[in-house]
């Protein structure tokens, strides 16, 4: 079974920060920090009405 309950323990490689085109690693880190903060602030505040089986067309298989 490939599913695990925890992510790998190793820390991410700090040299491989995910960036957008034209974005410096520092700018990317600042954006990622904003994304983290927004996500944590929104947690528990948004109830989404999504039927993933319908959205992903699984019933047509």
């Amino acid at each position: 079974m490939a599913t695990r309950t925890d992510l790998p323990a190793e820390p991410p490689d700090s040299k491989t920060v995910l960036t957008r085109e034209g974005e410096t690693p520092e700018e990317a880190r600042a954006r990622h920090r904003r994304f983290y903060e927004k996500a944590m602030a929104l947690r528990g505040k948004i109830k989404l009405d999504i039927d993933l089986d319908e959205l992903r067309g699984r019933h047509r298989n």
Partner: protein
Amino acid sequence: MSCVAGIVIDTSVWIDFLAGVKIRSVEDALANDLAIVPPLVIAELVTGAETMAARQAIGEFLQDAEVFATPLEHWIYVGDLRRSLARKGINVTVPDAHVAQCALDRNAVLLTRDSIFADIAKYTPLRLAR
């Protein structure tokens, strides 16, 4: 195991996270600058907003997301993934194959609560976490 190149977070996980479920793997991915969002997931999250306030909040939240870039090659691989799985008796939709392929393209871990991806992982190098 080698360092992960990213954590692709599926809609199934975002639904629970935004509803208030504490999901350590999501928090870790976000805190370590590893979270990646497939473009399809962006559309699905916006689709599910029940109010204008929720739609606005989600739109603002996603502005800073690391959205997975999908060049031509990605879509060719999506088709190849579906073809290879179909030969093994596993039928997956284009959206599901796209999400899985985002993780495969980046050698990333896919965070999902959807069992279809366990089927995909049986026949591919796809790595999963919850």
